[in-house]
């Protein structure tokens, strides 16, 4: 009895706490990283005042947001206004449950084996799709309940955009599921090892579609229309301040990390080092696998995720913003047909290779 309780309650809770803590820290530092990278691209220094090289800046920002006055506009729908940021942050964090941060072993603690992921659901990918589409409710409710016209426009844009890009987002993953024959995130990584190739090689179109629609899903430049600051002031979160705004902000960056981790898991071999089946390249692990294979896994997972995130920030430093109708046209006329074609082509290839 106690054993089951620990196995199914205490350990998952501990895992959740660790993941939430680490990811929250990573998210705060992602903001600093973004500012540093943008600063580097834009010939300026980025934060430097709080701590050496501005290293404590995210903490200062978080404290500022926490102690800031939390304004609820007079005419706003108080309940929905408060609920919206929560509805945005919950799906973002929930999606972390199925992401395998490392693999190839377990941590043995007090006689229990702990996996480096919270849950290995056999429909992990579908679960992710389902959860990530929930985020749009927070945006819509937030924009609508603010009772502000700019927020309203932002929310409408957000809803239309996220619903449209949900389709190519889902289709781009189907190719990977066909190749691996499983919907489990861990299973897909293992399948890439067995296939001797990471799926971005056969699924390069899929990766491209996934990344572009992922950027659109997370409302980042060049698809940041719902919060286009030069048009809609701040879009759906115009009226938010303090901690509620921080939650929206946190959700956006967590979603970025999730998209990057999914891309890593599905297309870039997850926690595996490059060429995991070539023993001669073992030095790539930098000796981390001698301490623990899990550590090497985390290292590679983090590196790949960071590369994808860097691409995100690079886009932001380079591109102008799409216009609403152009975004829709891109989504419905190019992304969706292309993703369907990709699914059909992959399916044919899988059948012919059988």
């Amino acid at each position, binding site marked *: 009895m106690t054993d089951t309780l620990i196995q199914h309650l205490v350990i998952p809770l501990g895992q959740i706490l660790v993941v939430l803590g680490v990811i929250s820290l990573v998210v705060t530092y992602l903001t600093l990283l973004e500012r540093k990278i943008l600063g580097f691209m834009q010939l300026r220094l980025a934060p430097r005042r709080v701590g050496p090289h501005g290293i404590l800046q995210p903490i200062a920002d978080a404290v500022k947001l926490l102690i800031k006055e939390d304004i609820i506009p007079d005419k706003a729908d108080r309940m929905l206004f408060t609920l919206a940021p929560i509805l945005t942050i919950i799906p973002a964090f929930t999606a972390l449950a199925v992401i395998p941060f490392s693999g190839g072993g377990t941590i043995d603690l007090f006689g229990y084996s702990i996996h480096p992921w919270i849950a290995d659901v056999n429909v992990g990918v579908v679960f992710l799709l389902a959860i990530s589409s929930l985020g749009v409710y927070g945006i819509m409710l937030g924009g609508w309940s603010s009772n502000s016209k700019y927020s309203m426009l932002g929310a409408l844009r957000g809803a239309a955009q996220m619903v449209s890009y949900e389709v190519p987002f889902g289709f781009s993953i189907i190719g990977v599921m066909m190749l691996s024959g499983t919907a489990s995130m861990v299973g897909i990584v293992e399948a890439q090892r067995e296939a001797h190739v990471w799926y971005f090689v056969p699924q390069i179109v899929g990766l491209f579609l996934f990344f572009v629609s992922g950027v659109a899903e997370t409302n980042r430049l*060049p698809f940041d229309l719902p919060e286009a600051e030069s048009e809609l*002031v701040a879009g759906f979160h115009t009226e938010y301040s303090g901690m509620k705004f921080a939650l929206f902000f946190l959700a956006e960056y967590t979603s970025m990390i999730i998209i990057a981790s999914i891309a890593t898991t599905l297309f870039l071999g997850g926690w595996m080092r490059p060429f995991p089946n070539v023993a001669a390249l073992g030095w790539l692990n930098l000796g981390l696998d001698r301490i623990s294979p899990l550590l090497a896994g985390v290292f590679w997972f983090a590196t790949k995720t960071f590369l994808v995130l860097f691409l995100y920030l690079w886009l932001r430093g380079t*591109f102008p913003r799409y216009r609403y109708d152009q975004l829709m046209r891109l989504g419905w006329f190019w992304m969706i047909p292309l993703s369907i074609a990709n699914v059909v082509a992959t399916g044919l290839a899988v059948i012919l290779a059988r």
Partner: protein
Amino acid sequence: MFRTEMMDINMGPQHPATHGVLRLKLLLDGETVTDTDVIIGYLHRGVEKLCETKNYHMIEPYTDRLDYVAAMYENLGYVETVEKLMGIKVPERAEYIRVITAELQRIASHLVWLGTHALDIGAMTVFFYCFREREIILDLFEAFCGARLTYNAYRIGGLPWDLPPGWTDRARHFVKIFPERQKEYDQLLTKNRIWLGRTKGIGILRAEDAIDFGVTGPCLRSAGVDYDLRKAHPYSVYDRFQFDVPVTYNCDTYDRYLIRMEEMRQSTRIVEQALDHLPAGEIMGKVPKRIKPPVGEVYHTVEGPRGELGFYIVSQGEDKPYRMRFRSPSFVNLQALPHMIRGSLVADVVAVIGTLDIVLGDVDR
């Protein structure tokens, strides 16, 4: 039970993309703009009236505060108008230095335009690149006249100061590096698909409409009208320099972008030539201590970065003007805004405000 409704939305006076305190009342059908009401006056300081109480020397600093992004041109237009009224001959060296500083100002002004225009459309990096180059120009101006924004750099009849030692070399250095730097903006924008999508076919202003509205400057030239005061009615010593006036025919935001980019190149050419032929000699003409123009009136225009910048002075023979009137290009060009954005989307509104390149200090006066 269900019905659709037009939405009134207030853009400004505090909005990140209205370039100051411009207020637009947009009537939206979804995201489509059906009607626009442009409301100005939030920065009105009554400069024209103020000028009636100041003597001619004291007016020049006021002109700085009109178009504060291109204050050299306001100075230039004003002093040339008074000189025209009084028939003062300006020494050659002063004229050349005026041309050099004014053309550098055109580049600086266009850089501000490019940076903010790109920022409005979402390309934030261009802004920092532009301001890097603008900084060099502002440093040059600071060395010349001590100010970085409101210069008060010229005097009626010439210049208050000569160029400081080493200034021409620094200016030459800028002229040398600037074309390379401009290529960086080109790389970021000119062939960028998103940029093309956001600017091509947006904010159409055809030649006949432009002329009806009195629109001048790059906005007029993008409609195929080859009208640049530096060529059409050469003032100062502009007739001595080789330069082209870019003209395009598509009337859209992208064309205005191309024109201003080309104008920066042409301005660099002018500065280069002026630096090569900079004569030695006096910098101040023969001017009485108290400026008392004869009875009469005068209108003089210069080609500012935003268009035709006109000054109208009525003198009654006193040391103060009887009436002072500025024809500010931003104000006149802004009239075309409702026409240009009718039927377009909210996102285009900011693009069109950017392409008109208005300065609210110039609009409201």
